[in-house]
């Protein structure tokens, strides 16, 4: 008989968290040939047209009747206006990391809702 895990996954969320610790100046202005474009990008950032973002996946678990949350470490310093495909790709990678964490807790991937069922939350 398979050992029953004492950990159940209740909910899954893809979290888009504002990353105020990252600064685009850390990577802009590296190439003098793109100085003008980089300046425009920085002006748009300073104007609030875009911001830095972190993406991670969070699972709400029930362990011994108590709700716990565990989450992937996240990818940070992502430009908020990156294409949706890229943002989804990052979320998919974070989901895989979370599956590894949950596996250590005895939760099989088949017991975890698919990434497509996860709701997005902005924090």
């Amino acid at each position, binding site marked *: 008989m398979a050992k029953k895990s004492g*950990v159940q996954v209740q909910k899954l969320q893809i979290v888009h968290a504002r990353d105020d610790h990252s600064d685009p100046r850390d990577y802009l202005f590296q190439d003098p040939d793109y100085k003008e474009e980089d300046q425009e990008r920085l002006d748009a950032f300073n104007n609030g047209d875009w911001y830095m973002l972190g993406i991670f996946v969070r699972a709400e678990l029930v*362990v*011994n009747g*108590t709700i*716990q949350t565990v989450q*992937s470490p996240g990818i940070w310093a992502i430009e908020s206006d990156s294409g949706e495909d890229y943002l989804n790709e990052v979320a998919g990678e974070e989901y895989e990391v979370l599956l590894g964490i949950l596996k*250590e807790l005895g939760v099989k991937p088949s017991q975890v809702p698919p990434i497509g069922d996860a709701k997005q939350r902005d924090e």
Partner: protein
Amino acid sequence: MGSTRRPRVVEAAPRRAPAKLEEIRVVVEHDPDPDVSYLEQEDFEERLAAFQAGEFSFVGVHAEADVVIEGVVQTLTSGGLWGIESNSVENESGEEYLREIVVQEYEELRKILKTVGVPTSELPQAFEVKIEWRE
């Protein structure tokens, strides 16, 4: 003629604990949303007046542990006990009551930590757990 096979003995690698305990504490913090309806009962007028005069507030107590799972730090917590009158745990006379709640919350968290695979050898005794007061 049957040949006898020498049994091969392979030493299994010791299983790594799935979760490693990094820190454990019991937190006492302000309860921002207490249910104070019991103060509206008969015979609680003085207590209600004391509360309204700011003589006491409410706190919650929970145990929490930082555990490393697959290289990522996660914080796991007990359910917590809320709506505790602050002056029942703050002063010397409340020490015993606070200790009672600490043990209760810690035991709950201990079970959770055991379930997620923290070796019991890493879990301290209840009296060894530090109490952290948070604003």
